[in-house]
């Protein structure tokens, strides 16, 4: 049997952590774009948008991410597409992220006082101008901390992609632990690596929040 030193374990996990980071980024950027479209449809009061986007958000927030991953994996296959775990995981995580971000950002837009909308209206700004020059910048300031905070949820969410066979940090941990028979050590390393990824992001989100609060105090 090949002997695995702690360094071998850590090195292999680090290599796998690349895919965790990449999948998180794809989901976050993709989810951000989809979430932004959903938000704009809602804020622009498109007919039916409130109802459909609301249902969409409820659907993704009220069901397990694991089930969403399974549905993406088996659903795409059912449509006749030969999908890899990569595509299914990226799709499911993107949709999941978009639902949460759309809801977070809606709260931020709703927090903008009505007078701001009315003032913009009285300046004859159209919807795009109102969003770009008046509501958008103010909402962005409030939205930054919870959005960064949600990135932590996305990174942790990618761990579930291991279940549909996507080889990222958690799946690599399982494979290495099966090879080395040292699950305690391996999963402790895996947990520490997630911590090393997530904690700086959490701390960043908190510092943004503190700064914002100080600016308002």
């Amino acid at each position, binding site marked *: 049997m090949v002997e695995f030193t702690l360094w071998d374990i850590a090195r292999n996990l680090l290599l796998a952590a690349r895919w965790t980071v990449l999948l998180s980024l794809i989901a976050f950027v993709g989810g951000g774009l989809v979430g932004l479209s959903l938000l704009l449809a809602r804020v622009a009061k498109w007919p039916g948008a409130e109802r459909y986007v609301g249902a969409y958000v409820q659907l993704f927030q009220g069901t*397990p991410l694991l089930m969403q991953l399974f*549905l993406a994996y088996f659903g795409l296959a059912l449509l006749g597409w030969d999908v890899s775990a990569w595509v299914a995981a990226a799709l499911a995580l993107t949709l999941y992220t978009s639902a949460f971000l759309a809801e977070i950002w809606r709260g931020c837009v709703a927090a903008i006082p009505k007078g701001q909308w009315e003032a913009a209206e009285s300046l004859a700004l159209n919807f795009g101008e109102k969003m770009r020059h008046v509501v958008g910048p103010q909402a962005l300031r409030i939205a930054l901390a919870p959005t960064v905070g949600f990135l932590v949820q996305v990174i*942790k969410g990618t761990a579930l992609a291991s279940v549909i066979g996507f080889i990222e940090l958690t799946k690599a941990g399982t494979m290495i632990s099966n090879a080395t028979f040292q699950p305690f050590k391996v999963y402790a390393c895996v*947990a520490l690596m997630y*911590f090393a990824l997530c904690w700086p992001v959490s701390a960043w989100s908190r510092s943004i929040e503190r700064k914002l609060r100080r600016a308002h105090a």
Partner: protein
Amino acid sequence: MQLDFLAVLAEWPALLRGALVTLVLTAVATVGGLALGVACGWARAWGARPLAYVAGAYVELIRNTPFIVQLFFVFFGLPSLGVKLTPEIASVLAMVINLGAYAAEIVRAGIEGTPRGQIEAARSLAMNEWQVFMRVVLPPALGRVWPAMVSQIIIVMLGSAVCGQIATAELSYQANLIQSRNFRAFEAFIVATLVYLLLSVALRHALHWAGRRFVFGR
């Protein structure tokens, strides 16, 4: 493409059993997690310095790692220390540890919103620290943060879908079992997903009611 939901729905007793296991796991985790959360929230807001640091480290460690890794660590990792757990016990333990960390932050936010005057008034009535905390500070604090707590409990319930991966016979595990028998994977997971949706809506209502009735109500 042909969908056959009847093949899945015919297995309704298995789905029902799975949903019940999910609910039991969630109920036990809620009680344990709330107790742990209140203890850690107290330690962080009111406890001695070293205790506050320990609680803080626990909260940060759990909140910044995925639940599935925590579960695998408990189920696969702990036996090498001589702690052998059944899948059910490991699932509940991981859920309690997970919820406890999030609940601690929520409870702390509630505790820190307590007006100073109320604590001073309670002390002036010669209540000891335990009485001040349990009777004056905690109930309204929980009342303030209960909506956040309910959301967190539902997140933990949805997260318990992962427990099927270590062969805890909860809802997602049963769905997996059904699809391995009749190869109707998509339908089985659609049905399970809808049951989860139903559970989360029902649980939200039940917890809001239970909060008023048992936790912080008059």
